């Protein structure tokens, strides 16, 4: 029983990080239909910025995080304004390829600036300090990142559903032409969305780094899983992204624990194939209909 609890806790902790990554992907997809393959690398970049602020500039953790998120947001918005906006007439596939290119550029920059060696990310919570709850062991950092994940998701929900900016974001995603006709500044809203999504990725990176160490390739696997979680939950649904992340984290953990730890990673992708066959719109996505 304790073992089952341990697998569930582990699954939820990783699942909440998948959910954060998935949220960033979904946020962008909803507004612009672009799948951003540079999401993971932008997040890695931001995490390294936080690392430098913490170690070289010796800033307190909160300030370093704020600085890193600001850099991420600016980078995301700049990418939209400087590259995607001028190429907005490209096909969707073309734009996706541009994000792939950006992923390579950002990753190369990270390798150039910070090198490839694995680094320890200083974090206020300890990964080795643990609490025992009825036989289940939870580390301080797992609790912290789970709570931080929940708070971030809550804030995002409030922003999108309860503010005028959120309303504008939804309007732009539903009908761009109509939204523009009503005077919504689409360019600013898109730039904001890109900035927000990239900052979300940065949060995921900063929460992940203390657990997995910091290196230029740390987001490769979490990005793939976040992507899988987004597909699982419904690529245009934000609650779906959260649910997808948590379900994927728990499913992976249980599969690893009770079936085969060897095929744990494979299982995530089997789930996606299954979902795409049975329910292509994902768990909470709207049914996919193409207007003729």
């Amino acid at each position: 029983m304790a073992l089952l609890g341990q697998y569930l806790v582990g699954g939820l902790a990783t699942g909440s990080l998948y959910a954060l990554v998935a949220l960033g992907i979904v946020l962008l997809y909803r507004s612009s239909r672009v799948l951003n393959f540079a999401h993971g690398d932008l997040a890695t970049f931001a995490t390294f910025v936080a690392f430098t602020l913490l170690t070289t500039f010796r800033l307190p953790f909160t300030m370093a995080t704020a600085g890193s998120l600001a850099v991420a947001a600016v980078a995301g918005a700049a990418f939209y304004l400087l590259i995607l906006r001028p190429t907005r007439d490209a096909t969707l596939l073309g734009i996706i390829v541009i994000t792939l290119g950006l992923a390579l550029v950002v990753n190369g920059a990270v390798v150039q600036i910070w090198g490839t060696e694995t680094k320890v990310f200083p974090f206020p919570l300890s990964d080795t300090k643990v609490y025992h709850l009825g036989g289940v062991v939870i580390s301080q950092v797992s609790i912290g990142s789970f709570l931080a994940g929940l708070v971030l998701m809550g804030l995002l929900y409030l922003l999108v559903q309860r503010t005028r900016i959120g309303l504008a974001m939804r309007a732009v995603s539903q009908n761009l032409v109509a939204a523009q006709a009503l005077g919504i500044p689409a360019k600013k809203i898109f730039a904001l969305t890109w900035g927000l999504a990239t900052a979300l990725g940065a949060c995921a990176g900063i929460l992940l780094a203390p657990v997995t160490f910091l290196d230029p390739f740390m987001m490769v696997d979490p990005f793939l899983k976040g992507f899988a979680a987004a597909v699982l939950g419904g690529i245009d649904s934000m609650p779906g992204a959260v649910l997808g992340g948590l379900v994927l984290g728990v499913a992976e953990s249980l599969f690893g624990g009770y079936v085969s730890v060897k095929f744990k990673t494979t299982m995530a992708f089997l789930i996606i194939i299954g979902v795409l066959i049975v329910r292509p719109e994902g768990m909470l996505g709207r049914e996919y209909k193409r207007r003729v």
Partner: protein
Amino acid sequence: MKIMGRMLLIGALLTVLTSGSLAQTQERGVTATEVVIGTSQPLSGPAAFWGVPVTGGMDAWIKFINDQGGIHGRKIRLVARDDSYLPPRAVANVRELVDRERVFAIVGLLGSANSFAVRDYLVENQVIWVNPLADANMWAGFKQKKHLFVTFPSYLDEGRILADYAAKSMGVKTMAVFYQNDLYGQKGFLGVKRGAAQAKAKVVASVSYEVTDTDVSGHALKLREANPDAVILYATPRHGALIVREMAKIGFRPKILSSFTLTDPAMFTLAGDAWNDIILTAYFPLPGWGDARVEETLATISRITPALAQNPFNALAGVSFLEPFLEGMRRAGPNLTRESFVTAMESIRNWDGMVVRSISFGPDRHQGLNRIAIVKAENKQFKKLTDWISYPIGF
């Protein structure tokens, strides 16, 4: 005048022809002033922790040798390519190095799976290959090894020796293996199984991970479930550090042993105190053992590339992979060809380099090194626990 013109023409033709035939007999990658060698290493990706300092160590040592005038008047030029630890990219790199860069030899090439992937190509093209950084057992029984020289330890024998040491000297009755799901981990795992069987100990669990995995908490739980006396690691530095921390986190503290691939003080930075008391192996005298030549080499390469001081073992390992090649070049003399190089390498007996020691090759022996020692991790140092332990020469 006409005759003069013809004679000039013939003279010119002859010059062209003879120089052409000279060019043909000249060895690929060798000129009067330069030797080009190539390597493919994980300079990015999950094994960059190894690849970067190993390549850095090779590079720094080459600079040092070149600054002294090179060998027989030839400077050495290293062309290093990044393969991200992916076998298909290693294949593409090696083809490029041989076909386009026209290297004389491949030196190093990190990864068992990667080495296995490029093996046939290098053998078919008769490329000199000194030191695939891969399980040496892969070459046992392998016939076409004329151009291949290895001083890299065998994971199979190491695994056997580690299991034997655990059972006989540490009182371990049950052990588990945490290994990378590729040729590196599998060979180590196989070695541990054999060693355990010989020493009448039991392997109660084997848990493998993929190189891309970032979360090993489930793996740690699996290991704890089996409750072995000892866990033996065949992992990347990152996964090794992660699993040790995860096990400590869930209160599971078995004895831990690991391959020499994690014998680097940098592991203390990643794993913290959890890395203390881990039993590992070494195949050359480590810094801190009072070996003057090793300390001198480390000082030299750290002076050339200061960052190497952060990963002293891996940087020195880079030198150790290169040294036998340089010795072959020295012995081959000014007339460096593949033939003269092979003959020179085969003349090496009980040779001591700056880092590697006691290397022997011969016409029937291309495995130059067959010994390791057991060491213990203690406060960023590695204390030697046993004398050198020899294992049978496989090829």
